[in-house]
């Protein structure tokens, strides 16, 4: 089997106002079956996708935010969130959902999937990919 490619899914859009965030997550879930080296980037308005306490009851649209917590089961465990994007929007890391995965290489220890990175670290992550998909 050829070596896995590095796939980065770039999320720069807020949820619900448009369908991009949801349909991007659908690609991530399906793509997980292909056993590539997958990372997700959340920057600009994309950081709003990961906030706690989303409740869509009154808008009649499916709340897909819990799905992020299931990503670990699909072995998608690298979610990079840009610090500057959070700060510009008045958010702190504690405003985001807790997203964990069980590390099979480390006695199934629970570890956080979300990594807060600086803008320049985000630029490094983007520059280290084979395929960059943005929706």
């Amino acid at each position: 089997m050829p070596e896995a490619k590095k796939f980065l899914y770039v999320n720069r859009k807020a949820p619900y106002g448009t369908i991009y965030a949801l349909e991007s997550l659908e690609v991530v879930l399906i793509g997980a079956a292909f056993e590539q080296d997958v990372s997700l980037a959340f920057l600009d308005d994309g950081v709003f996708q990961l906030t706690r306490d989303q409740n869509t009851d009154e808008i009649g649209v499916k709340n897909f935010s819990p799905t992020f917590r299931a990503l670990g089961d699909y072995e998608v465990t690298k979610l990079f969130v840009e610090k500057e994007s959070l700060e510009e929007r008045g958010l702190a890391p504690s405003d985001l959902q807790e997203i964990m995965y069980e590390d099979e290489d480390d006695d199934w220890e629970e570890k956080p999937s979300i990594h807060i990175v600086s803008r320049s670290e985000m630029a490094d992550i983007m520059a280290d990919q084979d395929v960059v998909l943005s929706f």
Partner: protein
Amino acid sequence: MKFGIVVSEGPYTHQAADTAYHFAKAALDKGHEVPRVFFYHDGVNVATNLSIPPQDERHIQKNWTELAKANDIDMVVCIAAAQRRGILDENEAKRQGKDASNLAEGFRISGLGQLIEMGIECDRTVTFGD
């Protein structure tokens, strides 16, 4: 070189499907390959055969169908995105009990796996959207 192309906005409202078309044509003219174009989000609307633009305007669906035919491009329409937006091939229309289908010639409906596969197999993946 092999170029995979993603089109993720619908025709006429947004320029993405036009830009992607001109890009694909230029790539083929330069001797590159475009093995697959993947239509996602509102981009699936490019694949309807019910579009009737005024005669003095470009026909986006027909342009794609002809380009694909001449160059053996696999044009894939995402099934989940297509079903949300009412783009159906004959089989799917039957299966869902609909009395009509509207998938234009040269397009086929398939899953998101085809997008990932395109990313794996092509040297470059270029996305056109909003």
